[in-house]
């Protein structure tokens, strides 16, 4: 958030940014899709400075366990 990027989406972990193999195939897929959808939402959002978009909050619905 201090490196100059303005639209930042919270990923899972450095080893698997866009998903979580520990969730099993179906939930992993839903979680990954949520991350990508959040990124697309970020691209459409006007902003004035660095902003964190959290997939658990942004897309709504159940909170995704990310660990």
């Amino acid at each position, binding site marked *: 958030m201090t490196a100059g*990027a303005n639209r930042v989406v919270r990923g899972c972990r450095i080893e*698997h*940014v*866009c998903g979580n*193999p520990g969730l099993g195939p179906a939930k992993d897929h839903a979680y990954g*899709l949520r991350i*990508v*959808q959040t990124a697309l939402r970020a*691209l459409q959002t006007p*902003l004035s400075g660095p902003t964190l978009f959290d997939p658990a909050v942004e897309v709504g619905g159940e909170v995704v366990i990310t660990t």
Partner: protein
Amino acid sequence: MAAPAAGGTAPSTRRVRAVHYLNQFFAGIGAEEQAGYRVEVRPGLVGPGRALETLFDSQGTIVATIAGGDNYVNEQGAAAEEAIRVALREWRPDVVIAGPAFNAGRYGLACGLVCRVARELGLPAVTAMYPENPAVDVYRREAPIVPASADAAGMQPALRALARLALKLGREESLGPAEVEGYLPRGIRRLGRRDRPAHERAVAMLVAKLQGEPYTTELPVLPFERVSPATPVADLSHATLGLVTTGGLVPKGNPDRLVRGGAREWFRYSIAGLPALSADDWECVHRGFYTGIVGQNPNYILPLNLVRELEVQGTLAGVYPWFISTSGVGTAVAEAKRMGAEMASEFRRAGVDGVLLVAT
């Protein structure tokens, strides 16, 4: 037999007791596969602590070493912090030394955390890292940070600077300004007296500047990069998306010889017509994280499968048929800026409307 000289044991000659923090790698526990290792305390010195204690020149000793896995400390922040606090309370050192962390981001953040915990306990602390380590911006006010090289080749000078400042801090001597003591500026100003009044110094600086001579500013402005946010994408259903990853994703066999860290090059690879990335065709070249999981499913660092799904649904108009890859670890900021600009101009030329960059 001669009696010990009277008064020879004044507090100033007492050895400074230091506690040293190292990550799992420098503590000899293991490499990236051990990054989840918990915080552990070992009596005495470990690894680079030996050279550090030698540099104390018998004036100080490392009483204990705290070791922690980079992922553990950054992901289990509260538990790690508590373990560090318990260890520092138990050993009650005169000074805490963390690192050097060089340009390792997670290690730098762990060192900063250790310094913050020490400060909260009223213990002086010092750490060392590369000036561009992201942790410098986060922790520069918590403790003096000695500049170190980007990698461990500069271990010895970093330890020398750490040893000198640690002895000073451990004896409760006050530190002079950053440029005198050799640590990175903290942005703290203290009242002091200069030889000449401000107006004379200011005019002298101006004259030097106008004559093209060197001068040293008294008010350095720390650069904090601000990038103006790009205009949002108006209509995704008419937009082409570009994909970038700094996870070091390359075709199997790494035909372009992308380096595992400190990259100065980026490459583009075709994803035209591919529904997803297969582990049979791609591999990950990156020294900054455990790549085994991505090795089994490269879509975790370039979510082509998911992006295709949204393309088929019509959420997106299309995906640029090339993705861009580099290994984002240990690259100097100036190089990263240049590469970023080059990538952006490729996308601009191709009429890409928005870019998804997966950073590892």
